[in-house]
């Protein structure tokens, strides 16, 4: 790619006279020249990469994640999970007799970047399938590209229903927002909390979706929403909203958003002496949740994809391996990404080929795949149907409360 830069600089001396600007049409025409030169350079450099892939001794698996930027903590966990699955498979001799090679792109947690990096990955490496993203907004950018190129894409944790509606090559291994919203509503009602307040992060598609589906289930099943408030991620001050909520005396508060703000909300709520429990979705799942809020988080609940306290051998086995490899406790993103990769490898084995249509069919027909986050069966809409767990924060740890089945 060094070509375009050098071709860029050459046409410029044309304009070295400071008066050029005042003699109009010259600059217009030379702009065209400049443009043409640039584009030729670019096009040439683009063409060269046409047949990079095609090594028959390996299978290329693509992954895109937010390794840097605001949501890097999710992206890093997901990347760890995928890498562990691939390394494991390679240690066991690969798949279909071939070594696996993982290609990872960083979308920097930024809008627009996911589309670019996925195109780049597809053009350069031609992966047989792509794993990503955690964030629904970035999965929605990449999904049409994967669909168009007929490359199966498996999202580990995008819970927005729209993601898999893009087309028949797009899958996910997590439950979706309607289910999670319903689970939280069901849980509240079971405990007899029929007056709930809602505090939603309106900047996050995930949070808005969660709130909608929660509200729907909650009000249809006898609950009342006494107060609806909102905030935008990045906000630090929630006292105004919380003061309003306090005035309506709810029995529980749904805080739909991510852990950064959830922690702040919890501590500001306690400062305002709001003593009812706060509930959240899987966006709360991060060690930072407790770090920021400390004691204020105690007793609150959130729904999640798995619990590290689950005694099942799949979970315990995964925990031990992850800890040995990364010296860290895995979070749900790590587990889901691991599951996404394992499910993909299983599908490749079942298909016996990496040809895209066959692989797509193999993934689509996954039934009862024994995953860390519960047995996965992909339904007709390419969503995983499986149970959610409810966790409670006790002594700074996430304690398993119960499993809620679909």
């Amino acid at each position, binding site marked *: 790619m060094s070509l375009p830069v050098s071709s860029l600089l050459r046409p410029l001396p044309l304009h070295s006279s400071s008066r050029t600007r005042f003699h109009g049409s010259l600059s217009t025409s030379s702009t065209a020249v400049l443009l043409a030169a640039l584009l030729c350079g670019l096009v040439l450099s683009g063409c060269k990469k046409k047949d990079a892939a095609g090594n028959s001794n390996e299978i290329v698996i693509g992954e895109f994640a937010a390794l840097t930027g605001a949501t890097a903590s999710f992206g890093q966990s997901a990347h760890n999970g995928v890498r562990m699955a691939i390394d494991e498979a390679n240690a066991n001799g690969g798949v279909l007799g071939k070594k696996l090679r993982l290609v990872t792109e960083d979308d920097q947690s930024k809008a627009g970047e996911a589309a670019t990096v996925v195109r780049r990955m597809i053009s350069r490496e031609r992966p047989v399938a792509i794993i990503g993203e955690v964030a629904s907004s970035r999965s929605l950018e990449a999904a049409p590209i994967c669909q168009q190129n007929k490359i199966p894409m498996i999202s580990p944790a995008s819970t927005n229903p729209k993601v898999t509606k893009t087309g028949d090559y797009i899958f996910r291994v997590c439950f979706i927002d309607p289910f999670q919203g319903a689970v939280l509503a069901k849980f509240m009602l079971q405990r007899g909390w029929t007056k709930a307040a809602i505090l939603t992060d309106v900047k996050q598609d995930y949070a808005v979706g969660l709130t909608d589906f929660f509200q729907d289930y909650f009000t249809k099943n006898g609950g009342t929403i006494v107060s609806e408030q909102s905030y935008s991620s990045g906000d*630090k001050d929630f006292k*105004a*909203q919380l003061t309003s909520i*306090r*005035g309506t005396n709810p029995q529980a508060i749904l805080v739909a958003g991510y852990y950064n703000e959830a922690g702040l909300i919890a501590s500001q709520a306690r*400062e305002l002496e709001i003593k009812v429990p706060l509930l959240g979705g899987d966006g709360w799942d991060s060690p930072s949740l407790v*770090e920021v809020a400390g004691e204020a988080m105690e007793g609150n609940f959130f729904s999640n994809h798995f619990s590290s306290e689950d005694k099942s051998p799949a979970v315990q086995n995964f925990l031990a391996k992850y800890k040995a490899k990364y010296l860290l406790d895995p979070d749900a993103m790590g587990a889901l990404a691991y599951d996404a990769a394992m499910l993909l490898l299983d599908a490749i084995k079942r298909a016996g080929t990496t040809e895209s249509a066959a692989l797509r069919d193999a993934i689509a027909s996954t039934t009862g795949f024994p995953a860390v986050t519960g047995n996965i069966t992909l339904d007709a809409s390419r969503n995983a149907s499986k149970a959610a767990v409810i966790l409670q924060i006790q002594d700074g740890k996430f304690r398993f409360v119960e499993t809620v089945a679909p």
Partner: protein
Amino acid sequence: MDWANLTQQLINGLSLGAIYALIALGYTMVYGVLRFINFAHGDVFMIGAFAGLYVHRWLKPLFHWMPDFLSALIVLLLSMLICAVIGIVIEKLAYKPLRQRSRLTVLITAIGVSLLLSYGTQLVCGAAPKGFPQLIKNETLDLPGVVSMTTEQVVVLVVTVLLLISLRFIVQKTRMGLAMRALSNNPTAASLMGVNTDAVISFTFGLGSALAAAAGIFFAMLYQAIDPFMGILPGIKAFVAAVLGGIGNIAGAALGGVLIGLLETLVVGYSKNIGIPPGFRDAVAFVILILILMFKPAGLLGKSEREKV
């Protein structure tokens, strides 16, 4: 009307307003002596919060031996000092070479400085928000009614008032303050009368940055989390506060800050009653800015001034 709720919202708004006021002072003072908007001021505020975090981390072993308020004071003063130095260095390196240039050139430089500070902090400290330690033991004080106030809110309000009083003393009663006022009034005359312009400008930047650092610490204390881009919005809102009060006017900046803090909190708190979604919070300051610039460009306390040819 629910009076307890209103009082509570006013207390919340007041502590937010105090922070805006402290930042706004820096804008207004720099504008007073140099006639330009220091776009990077919001990032100095952010650096103040990060400085507080790291000072607290480094000195933690020492803090076991002293009461809360003393260690908090040390963190506050050290961060203010660090930011004062940073402010002076920024002025010397980036703005001083541009003293005779157009405002636009200086504005672009200031945007560059702003980006440098926020992306530099992101590189060093990471993009993810960081928790801020509890500097003083936070207790909820119950006031009459169902109104409550935290120790932190009380400390923020009291210290802000103290800082404002000492700032007024510096500006009105010291030789440096006299020089600042002289420079603001007429730079040419001031330098002819023997005012050391460079020294006064450095001092102004140092003072403004120290106040921004205090605001950064207070912000972090009240809202517990800090990140490299936290300075952009409060910085711009504080600028609006300075314009609202009348840019160049110190009392005006304080007033503007408090007003914006209160208005913002009330809009969010009463969004249902007034029919504005709370998401519009960040638009409040800009709407005020546009209204004030259209109808009373000199601000509430400023005196109008014609652009001279």
